[in-house]
């Protein structure tokens, strides 16, 4: 029997439930699949300027003397382009997250009406599978809401099958 020696993780691509009552004034950052509300910027730029506190809250990156850093990764900001990334015009210093994503070559999608920015994986993250051939880990709920990670199945063969309810 297949099931005796093989764990099959079957995925359903399901329609998401609708939640009403969003606040039009808010700004939302989707980074690493996590949504974070951030302080609205004082101007109407399509670039997303966030406070340094929101930068860290939404992305895990922090401004340091050597650059914009998260864990082992530190991205220097070119001196000649400092004004493109940092603004001190208002009382609170702000950082241009959109410009940073362009520097890191992240894919970005933006909705001007609802003011939501989605930031996708950097090229090195996209290429990680090709480099390592390691299956990207993920955590998702079952139908009762209990979460499971692909890594939980380490030590067993996994047939990862996707289906949909269309």
């Amino acid at each position: 029997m297949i099931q005796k020696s093989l764990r099959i993780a079957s995925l359903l691509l399901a329609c998401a439930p609708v939640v009403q009552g969003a606040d039009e004034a808010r700004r939302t950052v989707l980074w690493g699949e996590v949504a974070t509300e951030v302080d609205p910027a004082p101007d109407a730029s399509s670039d997303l300027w966030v406070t340094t506190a929101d930068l860290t809250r939404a992305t895990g990156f922090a401004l340091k003397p050597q650059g914009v850093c998260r864990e082992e990764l530190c991205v220097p900001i070119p001196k000649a382009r400092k004004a493109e990334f940092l603004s001190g015009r208002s009382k609170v210093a702000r950082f241009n997250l959109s410009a940073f994503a362009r520097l890191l070559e992240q894919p970005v999608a933006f909705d001007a009406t609802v003011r939501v920015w989605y930031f996708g994986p950097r090229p090195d993250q996209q290429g990680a599978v090709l480099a390592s051939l390691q299956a990207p880990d993920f955590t998702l709920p079952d139908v009762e809401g209990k979460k499971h990670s692909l890594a939980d199945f380490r030590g067993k063969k996994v047939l990862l099958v996707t289906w949909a309810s269309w």
Partner: protein
Amino acid sequence: MKDAGPWVTAAHPSYTVLVDETHLVTRLYGMVNVPTAVWIDERGRIVRPSEVAFVDDRFKRFHGMDAAPYLAAIRNWISEGERSAFVLGEAELRDRLAPRNPDHVLADAEFALGEYLYKTGHGPAAIPHFKEAQRLNPESWNYKRQAWALSDAKRDYGTSFDEEVAKLNGKPYYAPRQLRPERQDDQKNR
């Protein structure tokens, strides 16, 4: 969840069934249709990347593929492990996992944004992003069918599943599956 949940519960599956409301796995594994499967070994390494994965013949009239050879390949992998003829070598894996088209990466971002907008009560705002994802990655039936399922496809997208399939004009609905490795002297994934 509301559509599939009762079926999953009633079936009492012996395997784990997860619900992916945001198409995260589609993005992580570059999937474009269902059913798609990936084979992952005991060390968490991919031994066969995304490919069409029918395990019975109920839709054979539509796609023309026999399930039996695929099931036989799975059983062979279970009994033979990395010695299985169906486990791909590193070079062929890298060929099949080729770097992603930048347009498709951007399509993933647009689709993920659309999913978030829909989930937070902004269904109409999601539609232009779903359309952009479909334009950037026209091969993704996941991005077409999921978007159409969330609204009136004819009204909002000017099309339907049947019309889009008819446009294929004989081209296969699924990318052809190559069960046997093409590279004979390839190092296995170890």
